[in-house]
């Protein structure tokens, strides 16, 4: 069946910081360019989750008058703390001994979701057409193999794949240039990287999972502008990760935990590590008497420059973390994502105007401050392969003494899905039961995300081999999907003594962790019906 076609100069897939910045910058360069932004969430911002301590460098360039335009960038960082946690103790690390990249005194505590909503308003004001609730589900290619555009998801298909009465066919959006800005592990970006072999000669990408909660706390426990990070407990020396706690406006605390998805122990549950972390006395004291009001999780990029794929291909560009521009030691990716989108816009502007090849994107990127930042940051994450303590010592030398200028580059050796060791070789972890005051179970957490997927639709988590979870994963890894999924999507149930692998796809919060961590890469995340997924507020 032929689908309806709409033509644009530029189609952008994803309404996050990189996609919206690309749209805005393009309109600023030439208001005549037709731009359409597709977003799978029911509204802009509803699938955005981030810390977020925001560096304004890219925003300053995009909107020098952002303060007058009332950007939701209000809470200046006033105080910083860094703690090494032991089980009951905490060692405070003097901030003057922190590397420069971890100092935040010129930065702001923001909600990235609200920031995106504001960017979308600015973009619409400039004439960009934004369509929330329309996931791009498919890449359309020209006969010569170049990217022609994307197709949106069909709506109104039932579980068996039949058309319902409400069926509405997806449409094709054709563009001179398509920009992929889906964020970490975009499901189209993944296909492009493989089809055009964009990761050739690069290290395997590295990922983390970030879990976040928003707490409303008592005035006494709130210190607006305080930024605190921790390393250490409850993770062991071999597992890369740490926490953030940002005291935002309205007596809210943004609390989160990030764990590298290269963890080795299949018994580890990122969700439960986060819950357990909150019981530490130096964290709990802020939360006591408060109320958890939001929860969410999202995978993030940690690979940096070594893993950054080629970002251009015939007819298309990858921007932000669909490529992987996050600066890991800085724990920030919003400003680099925005800048990568702005550079893409400049590239497309010159491409449309003077027919310059899209490959100038790479040159422009290499000459930008993003590249400089990522270059200086490149050795931090791989050094943690030696464990937390050696990693910190090396990072101190690399970042404080040499400012990232050491004359060598450490490599990321393995992909994250290769990292798990067999379950019987690794220690079991007993997680404490939730108390429903400070710690919670997955069900009540997922409830807070507002996630939903229309009931009668195909499962959007595809198993390449549907038998693998029971025939292989159970024995070897005790099916880790039960634990790495932060939303309880995957369960192993026993029915008449027969084990069954159950996918509760309605619970999915679109974090993409399963697509990354499944040891045999057996799970493929595809777009569900438009508007499905979490409904994050000010995440």
């Amino acid at each position, binding site marked *: 069946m032929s689908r*309806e076609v*709409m033509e644009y100069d530029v189609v952008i897939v994803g309404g996050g910081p990189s996609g919206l910045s690309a749209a805005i910058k393009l309109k600023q360069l030439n208001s005549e360019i037709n731009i359409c932004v597709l977003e799978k969430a*029911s*509204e802009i*911002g*509803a699938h955005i989750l981030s810390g977020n301590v925001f560096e304004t460098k890219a925003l300053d360039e995009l909107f020098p008058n952002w303060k007058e335009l009332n950007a939701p960038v209000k809470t200046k960082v006033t105080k910083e703390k860094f703690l090494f946690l032991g089980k009951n103790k905490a060692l405070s690390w003097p901030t003057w001994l922190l590397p420069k990249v971890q100092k935040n005194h010129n930065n702001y505590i923001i*909600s990235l*979701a*609200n920031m995106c*909503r504001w960017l979308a308003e600015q973009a619409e004001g400039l004439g960009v*057409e934004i*369509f929330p609730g*329309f996931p791009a589900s498919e890449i359309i290619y020209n006969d010569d193999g170049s990217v022609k555009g994307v197709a*949106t998801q069909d*709506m*109104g298909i039932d579980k068996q794949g039949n058309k*319902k*009465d*409400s069926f*509405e*066919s997806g*449409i094709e959006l054709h563009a001179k240039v398509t920009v992929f800005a889906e964020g970490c592990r975009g499901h189209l970006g993944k296909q492009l990287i493989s089809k055009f072999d964009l990761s050739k000669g690069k290290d395997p990408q590295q990922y983390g999972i970030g879990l976040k909660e928003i707490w*409303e706390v008592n005035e006494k426990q709130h210190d607006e502008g305080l930024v605190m990070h921790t390393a250490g407990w409850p993770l062991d020396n071999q597992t890369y990760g740490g926490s953030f706690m940002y005291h935002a406006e309205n*007596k809210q605390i943004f609390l989160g935990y990030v764990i590298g998805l290269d963890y080795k122990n299949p018994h580890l549950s990122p969700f439960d590590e986060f819950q357990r972390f909150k019981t530490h006395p130096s964290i709990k004291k802020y939360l006591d008497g408060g109320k958890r*009001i939001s929860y969410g999780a999202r995978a993030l990029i940690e690979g940096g420059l070594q893993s950054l794929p080629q970002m251009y291909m015939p007819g298309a560009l990858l921007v932000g973390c669909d490529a992987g521009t996050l600066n890991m030691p800085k724990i920030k990716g919003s400003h680099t994502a925005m800048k990568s989108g702005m550079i893409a816009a400049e590239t497309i502007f010159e491409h449309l105007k003077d027919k310059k090849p899209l490959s100038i994107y790479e040159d422009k990127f290499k000459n930008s401050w993003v590249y400089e930042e990522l270059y200086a940051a490149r050795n931090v994450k791989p050094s943690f392969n030696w464990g937390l303590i050696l990693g910190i010592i090396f990072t101190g030398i690399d970042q404080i003494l040499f400012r990232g200028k050491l004359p060598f580059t450490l490599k990321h050796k393995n992909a994250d899905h290769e990292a798990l060791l067999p379950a019987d070789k690794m220690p079991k972890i007993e997680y404490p039961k939730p108390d429903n005051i400070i710690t919670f179970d997955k069900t009540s957490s997922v*409830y*807070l995300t*507002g*996630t*939903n997927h229309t009931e009668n639709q195909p499962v959007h988590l595809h198993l390449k081999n549907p038998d693998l979870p029971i025939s292989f994963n159970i024995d070897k890894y005790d099916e880790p999907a039960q634990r790495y999924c932060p939303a309880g999507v995957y369960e192993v149930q026993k029915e008449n003594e027969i084990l069954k692998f159950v996918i509760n796809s309605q619970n999915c919060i679109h974090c993409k962790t399963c697509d990354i961590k499944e040891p045999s890469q057996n799970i493929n995340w595809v777009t569900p019906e*438009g508007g499905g997924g979490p*409904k994050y*507020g*000010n995440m």
Partner: protein
Amino acid sequence: MKILVAVKRVIDYNVQIRVKEDNSGIVTDNVKMSTNPPDDNAIEEAVKIKESGKATEIVAITIGDDKAQETVRKALAVGADRGIHVKADGIIEPLAVSKILKAVVEKEKPDLVFMGKQAIDDDCNQTGQMLAALLNWPQATFASEINVKDKSLEVTREVDEGLETIEVNIPAIVTCDLRLNEPRYASLPNIMKAKKKPIDQMSATDLGVDTKPRIEQIKVEEPPKRKAGIKVANVAELVNKLKNEAKVI
């Protein structure tokens, strides 16, 4: 035949409602909003009637702040022909809504007024009934099936006892149940087209309606949390507890 459909912007049904810390209301900042679900059914039914050739024009109306316009746009994207946005801030009670709708009905002269049976935010379930009283029109509430006849409607209603079928003369008010139909999706090209459809702007004052609340809202509270259950050792203990603690037997 002309159909006026009233739609309301409410907090999305998937969002967990949160009470403001000072108990003055619920949190609406940065919260996903959508069209009140049964209002979607009302629009869908109007569009179906128009598609069957029995109606010629569908006008979607909403009352609320600037952002409420999105709700009218959505109605336009699934088939309404034009929109009306009555600007009003704060809580607009069902009586004020009915008075505004009455004023608009007198201007627009529709043959039918459709709306959802109730809004999922205040659950009042009053507007349709009040409007019928103000206009002195027949009403068919909780409609789960509508058959358009020459000068009347045959409406099946969802009532406590089961289904009730009634016939009402046109003009009439119909409030729609979720079982009435399955609302269609707005397609991308139709959303584009909807951007070009006209939306008339007016205010409650223009229509001569005083929207001042008649009800004073004193406090909004979360329902009390359910206590965790306990295990009893035997039947005797259970009976004892039911008698002396729960006092239910």
